[in-house]
């Protein structure tokens, strides 16, 4: 049962092979038994899950079930969940019981999904390793001494370790795709504005986007069908038709034009990863695709531009955590300023403070033009690179990460080398484009991700491309040893 995809579980529920209560109970038991090894959950919502499962079974019996009714999933712990702690992986929100549901959460509720719990993450989604979580690092099931990637590390681990059939994630600079790659699962970052950000605790508002993490492209399509669409509560969410993403999964790839950016295959890339990516591309050629080299000349500028824009927005977004209305307040503040400084100083971890400081500095009078404004200009150059290339090809492919999962603690004291791990993923957030990571092989027993990038709102195309690849290969079916 634990190896089944969402689509398979949905079929089983519909055929009456098992009930949602049985399904949910089994997953909860497995979480209880196994998660201490992986630390993928911050909160498990057992009672609520069982209640939702019973309601789903009633709906199935009454014939009112939809395609998602009764399917258990986990939510990254930055989606607000009414009546349930929403910690963002931070001491700051360790005591925060959200009084409302994020739009994404409400949509899954509406669709009849069962929430198993809230998954571990880098604090306030700032990190590429899940090591900055207040609740300790989540561990990569392929090697528990290694990181699962971040910031949606807990979601990646939960799916890879079969502790949830699927999970939501959020992606500000690669936070869905990078853990998906390092954990050997499938993840999709939609076009900016495709999925509502309301109730998803903000890291960098102009880059953040929620998305699905699952075993297969098909499962991601099922989840995106629930998640995507207009939300009047989010000014940046677009009022644009949502196709049925499962309907076009099997379109043939004959004549698909793939672009390989030469900048993605430079010296920084682990040659073994390059080899796996090329092998995957060869598979697509077998499916009828043509391949050409393309150029994204401003790739290297992504990292500096991102590490200004994201911290700048974060420094402002995280100002609301002041100990006045919710969240952590220090003991016995001696005055107002002391309350602010100690509540924030004690409530935030080191990486969050570092980024707040970088962002604060970048926005200061006198530096704004050199940093923030310059970064936003570079952002347009990066976008123009993509627009130009996507006029020539249908999708762009390359590695999701330059290396497989690194060891816990290996990069902790060197933020800049950690940031370098994001080189292939950041640019999509800056440009607002959709991208997927799909398992495409292993290096030394660790999974490797293929990144597939498409044009704005081309999620259906990406899912189709990934699905056809998964019909032809079985990398996505590999499980870590012992699972």
């Amino acid at each position, binding site marked *: 049962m634990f190896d089944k995809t969402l689509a398979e579980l949905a079929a089983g529920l519909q055929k009456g092979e098992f009930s949602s209560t049985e399904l949910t109970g089994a997953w909860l038991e497995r979480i209880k038994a196994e998660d201490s090894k992986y630390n993928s959950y911050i909160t498990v919502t057992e009672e609520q899950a069982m209640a939702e499962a019973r309601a789903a079974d009633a709906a199935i019996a009454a014939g009112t079930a939809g395609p998602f009714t009764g399917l258990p999933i986990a939510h990254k712990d*930055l*989606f*607000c969940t009414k009546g349930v702690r*929403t910690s*963002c992986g931070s001491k700051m*929100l360790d005591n*925060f019981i*959200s*009084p*409302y549901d*994020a739009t994404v959460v409400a949509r899954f509720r509406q669709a009849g999904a069962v929430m198993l719990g809230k998954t571990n993450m880098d604090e306030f989604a700032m990190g590429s390793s899940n090591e900055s979580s207040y609740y300790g690092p989540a561990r990569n099931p392929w090697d528990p001494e290694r990181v699962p990637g971040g910031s949606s590390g807990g979601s990646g681990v939960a799916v890879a370790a079969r502790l949830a059939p699927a999970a939501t994630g959020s992606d500000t600079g690669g936070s869905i795709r990078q853990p998906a790659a390092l954990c050997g699962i499938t993840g999709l970052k939609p076009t900016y504005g495709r999925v509502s*950000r*309301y*109730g*998803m*605790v*903000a890291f*960098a*508002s*102009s880059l953040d986007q929620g998305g699905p993490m699952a075993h297969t492209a098909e499962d991601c399509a099922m989840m995106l069908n629930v998640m995507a669409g207009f939300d*009047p*509560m*989010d*000014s*940046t969410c677009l009022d644009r038709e949502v196709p049925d993403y499962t309907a076009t999964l099997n379109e043939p790839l004959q004549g698909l034009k793939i672009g390989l950016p030469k900048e993605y295959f430079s010296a920084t890339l682990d040659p073994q990863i390059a080899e796996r990516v090329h092998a995957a591309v060869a598979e697509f050629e077998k499916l009828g695709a043509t391949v050409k080299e393309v150029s994204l000349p401003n790739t290297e500028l992504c990292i500096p531009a991102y590490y200004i824009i994201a911290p*700048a*927005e974060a*420094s*402002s977004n*995280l*100002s*609301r*955590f*002041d100990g*006045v*209305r*919710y969240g952590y307040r220090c003991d016995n503040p001696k005055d*107002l300023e002391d309350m*602010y400084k100690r509540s924030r100083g004690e409530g935030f971890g080191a990486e969050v403070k570092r980024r707040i400081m970088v962002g*604060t500095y970048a*926005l*200061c*009078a006198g530096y*704004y033009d050199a940093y*923030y404004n310059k970064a936003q200009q570079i952002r347009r150059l990066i976008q123009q690179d993509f627009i130009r290339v996507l006029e020539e090809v249908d999708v762009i492919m390359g590695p999701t990460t330059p290396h497989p999962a690194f060891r816990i603690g290996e990069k902790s004291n060197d933020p800049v080398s950690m940031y370098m791990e994001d080189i292939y993923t950041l640019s999509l957030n800056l440009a607002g484009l959709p991208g997927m990571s799909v398992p495409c092989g292993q290096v030394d027993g660790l999974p490797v991700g293929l990144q597939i990038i498409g044009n704005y709102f081309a999620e259906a195309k990406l899912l189709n491309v990934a699905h056809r690849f998964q019909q032809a290969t079985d990398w996505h079916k590999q499980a870590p040893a012992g699972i």
Partner: protein
Amino acid sequence: MEWEVVIGLEIHVQLSTKTKIFSGASTAFGAAPNTQACAVDLALPGTLPVFNENALRMAVMFGLAVNAEIGKRSVFERKNYFYPDLPKGYQTTQLAEPIVGPGFVDIETDDGVQRRVRIHHAHLEEDAGKSLHEDFHGMSGIDLNRAGTPLIEIVSEPDMRSAKEAAAYARKIHAIVTTLGICDGNMAEGSMRCDCNVSVRPKGEEKLGTRTELKNINSFRFIERAIDSEVARQIDLIEDGGSVVQETRLYDPERNETRSMRSKEDANDYRYFPCPDLLPVVIDDSYIEAIRTTLPELPDARRDRFMNEYSLSEYDAGVLSAYRPQADYYEQVAGACGDAKLAANWVMGELAKYLNQHDTDITQSPVSAAQLGGLLLRIKDNTISGNIAKKVFELMWSEGGSADEIIEAQGLKQVTDTGEIEKIVDEVIARSDKQVEQYKAAEPEKRGKMLGFFMGQVMKATGGKANPGAVNGILKQKLDALCD
């Protein structure tokens, strides 16, 4: 040395939308603390702003009313600072691309100075909450009901040269926003608040002196008095060899002096940047023109029309047009009674006196324009005299009812029946031998003046209800007959 005063104003006007600028919570005044602060207003994690269309429409109305360029693209920015009444840790405001660009208004002071005051720009922003300083075991209480109420901040050029001009400018802005119906104009409740930038320089000098900013003044009278006292302080300081420090000051109306707000001087860097949760507000000509067609007649235009149409003096027309509900009321009264001058006298006289005494806004007046118009009609047609009308008005104010009902019920109708008046005149003449003798003895040309006594007697006997014209005629006729 002769000094020149230079003043610029920043006026915050609360827009009278039903809901907040970025949330669907009510803006009604006076609710219990934090009952109108929703998840968005409290800046709960994950919440996001969505812009209120009515706030945009009102800001554009204001821009059109002050002859300003309208920003077809305006951008919300974040002004970052920490304060307990600022839930997000930043205020959403506009800086580089405001909704209203340069414009102007014309003002005149009651001593006749006329001036054009340029408006630098006006921008949309959100109000903050309130810190309550009653003692909660040494702590302050925060009420966020006001947080997120839409404001426009109207920034003038430093074009005013006296406290009177500053007050006249503020009054003109008040007249415009209340006429447009975009603000209730209630200064006591903080619907309009004023920051005054004040400096002095030797007359003839071009360079501006160092300015101070007087914060949060909420009445026209205090604007005038605060500026006067600050100007005196600056001049004293400079003449004593000192120099003005650029700072924020508070006006204390009880002591009639300004004092420094040093605690707020903590050098800040607001780190403005475009708000990534909101997108640029883009409007086109057709949107602007559609709003233009909805603009009511503005105070200046209405004043000019009152002068032309009703032959009012500039002063009367100016007073009556400054506040739209009053101007509307006046026009209804004038229409009902058909005498514009009489209507003006009553609206600015008796009605204004009662409103003032009872601290009542004209919109809440217990005497409606129709009632007052009906009353004036009875003066016009000689049913009652002006003096009786004041008695009727008093009853109308306290007990209600139409003029005719009150006149009827109280028997205040003027006696115009000549038979009845003749009877009373005869009685008065019969018991006034001495005065009749004096009248007869007087030179014919002096007799007119002597009618006053008889007139008074007749009025007394009729309770003031006799038509004075009729009494006068009959008296003259009867007395003159006695002289022959």
